[in-house]
């Protein structure tokens, strides 16, 4: 396997009872890239993420990360080897403060969560404050996360994912619920992380401007089948992609 390939799936399939939601998806993602998977609702984008991150069990095929097979690994093991994700609906700790949310993820990354006797508040202060600053959440550090706005919850979830210091970050509709300004800020942050730390990013999104503005590679899923792949320009010109997702010429 090519060393540059960070994620690969071979004939990845998923069925729920008799419903086939993903069929023989062969996908490759190159290290250091920002890529997007697009497709209409129900195309199988989130299912693809769920299979890669261990959220669902794989019905057929395999998943490889940096050349190592990780098919049906436990979720925490997949997170530990360097794949983290943000969900479509923000998935945070609503009763902890924003600061505690981020600190928890940092302590998990630092493997300090089994520490029983040092007060948590003494640990990972600088890292937590830095990450809050980076994600624009410094002003909310003492706010209970459950009462943050939808956009800020999304930012917080991104912070939780980044705290894990992943090699591959999967973002499921990262800007859903955000204002256009927040969307721009968030995607610029994603782009910066990609450039500065070489983080590989794979996202799904419905906002065409975000997709074509930030993704270097697009893959189109339709009814669980990968129908087109290429640069944004190639996909824009692809008749099949136009037919099943883009609808009309853009």
């Amino acid at each position: 396997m090519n060393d540059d390939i960070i994620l690969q799936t071979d004939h990845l399939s998923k069925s729920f009872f008799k419903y086939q939601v993903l069929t023989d998806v062969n996908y490759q993602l190159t290290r250091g890239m920002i890529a997007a998977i697009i497709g209409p609702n129900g195309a199988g984008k989130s299912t693809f993420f769920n299979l890669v991150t261990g959220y669902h069990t794989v019905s057929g095929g395999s998943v490889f990360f940096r050349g190592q097979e990780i098919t049906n690994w436990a979720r925490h093991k997949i997170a530990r080897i360097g794949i983290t994700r943000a969900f479509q609906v923000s998935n945070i700790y609503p009763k902890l403060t924003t600061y505690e949310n981020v600190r928890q993820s940092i302590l998990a990354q630092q493997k300090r969560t089994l520490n029983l006797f040092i007060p948590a508040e003494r640990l990972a202060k600088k890292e937590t404050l830095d990450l809050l600053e980076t994600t624009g959440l410094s002003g909310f550090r003492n706010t209970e996360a459950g009462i943050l706005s939808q956009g800020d919850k999304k930012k917080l979830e991104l912070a939780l994912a980044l705290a894990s210091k992943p090699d591959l970050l999967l973002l499921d509709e990262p800007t859903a619920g955000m204002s256009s300004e927040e969307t721009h800020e968030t995607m610029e942050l994603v782009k910066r992380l990609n450039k500065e730390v070489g983080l590989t990013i794979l996202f799904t999104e419905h906002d065409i401007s975000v997709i074509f503005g930030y993704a270097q590679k697009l893959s189109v899923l339709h009814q669980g089948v990968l129908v087109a792949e290429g640069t944004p320009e190639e996909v824009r010109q692809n008749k099949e992609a136009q037919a099943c997702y883009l609808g009309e010429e853009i």
Partner: protein
Amino acid sequence: MDNKNTMFQRFWLPAALFVVALILPFVISEFWVHVFNEILILGLFAAAFNLVFGYMGQLSFGQAAYYGIGAYTTGLLMVKLHWPLFACLPVSMITAGIGALILGYFCVKLRGIYFAILTMAFGQLVFFIIFQWYSFTGGDNGLQGINPPEWLFKAIPYYYFSLTVVTIGMIILYFITESPFGYTLRAIRDNTERTEFIGINVQRYMLINFVISGMFCGLAGALWGPFNRSVAPDLCSWQHSGHPVFMAVMGGPHHFLGPMIGSVIFTFLNAFVTGFTEYWPLVSGMVIIIVVLVMPGGVFGIIKEKGYFCPRDAGDVKNE
């Protein structure tokens, strides 16, 4: 200065309670010293239970099993092998911890109502083993003659002994709840799914916590035997497992001291009400109904809601 304020805000209440507990035997009768001794022991039991309930978010209806294992370990060691009480306490924690490890291994695979039912089923299993095993545990007769050393024989010395052990136990539990491990429990309670996706093996942490809780339930049980001079199988029964649930709910499961305050209310009411009626369960049931309807967060929940003072709770740190 901020640090000093934070420290004061955090510790004034436990410090005040400790001072009151120190003074109490000088101002109350021996009967009430017994009652407060019971409050301390059951308070530790409830605080240990609350690691699973308030912090980890799972209701266990079987913690009395580990309380009973601790009580019987001390009882058996003291009666049959004549071990000193001090040596029995850590051994009781270990045996209760081993029990919690074996039974908890299965329980932590489940969540919610299934977790509660399995903990209760295992609790009843322990109860029936103790109940039936006449040759070893004394069966339904229990064990008698678990006498503490002579210098602890009277109510007041044993009260101070309990106060010391319970205080040490509570301090250790407090450190655990404020540690990264304690925050991981809160994280599991708040969002198990996210906790897995930040790389934490949730089942493993739940099991470790279940064992820690079992060990401290065992320590409380170990104090109970010599206090009561006897142990009986109903210490392990599911009804007894309900007591820390009541206490945590009454006091407030989202505050570290909630279960201890719940123990004060529950045990005090028990002692008071049984003085003039045999229908104590009816009264305790009514109190629970009132608490659940009027102050669902328990005593600490209502105090916090009214903003009288801002103690830290099991999901809340305002000062980093």
